[in-house]
């Protein structure tokens, strides 16, 4: 139903979040419900901010079908040394600037994984990182929905 790509500029905090914002408009237009939308926004925004904070450039690719939403964020950047560490709550290599803005608390990747029904990450040092998040549209219970 939806197959869209958005460019993400590394280091540009002024336009950070724009790709996720556009995705939200597309998903809302497609009638995606509040619970799925919240999870999609968490996964997309965190992945987008990872590119802004760490990488040179990146792309958010979103595909919405009848049963699931696939998000894929690919960047050209430094890659992640020690992915297992990065998936732990609290582990971060973000800059002071990112931290001052309330990011870089080591919550990004764990947040994405927690809000995904399927999650994948591939990284190559000096090349970049690819994050895949699949959110099932039919799944009913999830802790994030409690927040609503």
């Amino acid at each position: 139903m939806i197959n869209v790509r958005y460019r993400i500029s590394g280091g540009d905090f002024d336009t950070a979040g724009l790709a996720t914002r556009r995705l939200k408009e597309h998903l809302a237009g497609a009638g995606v419900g509040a619970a799925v939308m919240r999870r999609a926004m968490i996964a997309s925004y965190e992945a987008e901010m990872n590119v802004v904070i760490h990488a040179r450039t990146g792309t958010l690719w979103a595909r919405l079908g009848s049963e699931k939403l696939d998000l894929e964020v690919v960047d050209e950047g430094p890659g992640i040394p020690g992915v297992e560490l990065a998936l732990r709550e609290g582990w971060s290599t973000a800059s002071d600037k990112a931290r001052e803005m309330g990011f870089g608390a080591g919550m990004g990747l764990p947040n994405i994984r927690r809000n995904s029904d399927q999650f994948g990450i591939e990284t190559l040092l000096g090349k970049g990182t690819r994050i895949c998040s699949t959110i099932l549209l039919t799944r009913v219970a999830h802790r994030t929905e409690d927040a609503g």
Partner: protein
Amino acid sequence: MTLGSIVSTLGLEVLTPELSVNGGADVTKGHASDLLSDVLANAPSGGVLLTIQVHMSVVAVALHAGLAAVVFTQGMRPEELVRLKAVQEGLPLLATNESTFEVAGRLYALGLRGRGEPE
């Protein structure tokens, strides 16, 4: 209670007078945090956010989390560009010189609650 009632009861400054604080759904929940990843993941939709973060990303995160309003505490005020963005997006911005702790306590006394225990 309505956002308007919260504003008047706590004596909050309305930074976005272009937007009405009356007429919306009742606000029953709140969240206090300066970590935007935490706000994004854990702030209850329809609630108010208490924070000292005043940059543009706060507006983006508040919108993604579906919040009713943002209250800047401890005398923090956003720049005009941030304020204008919030107006454009229909997100009321409020401010107070009181600390986050004080405001959270007063909101709790008014009946607002946090998101509840995570699973």
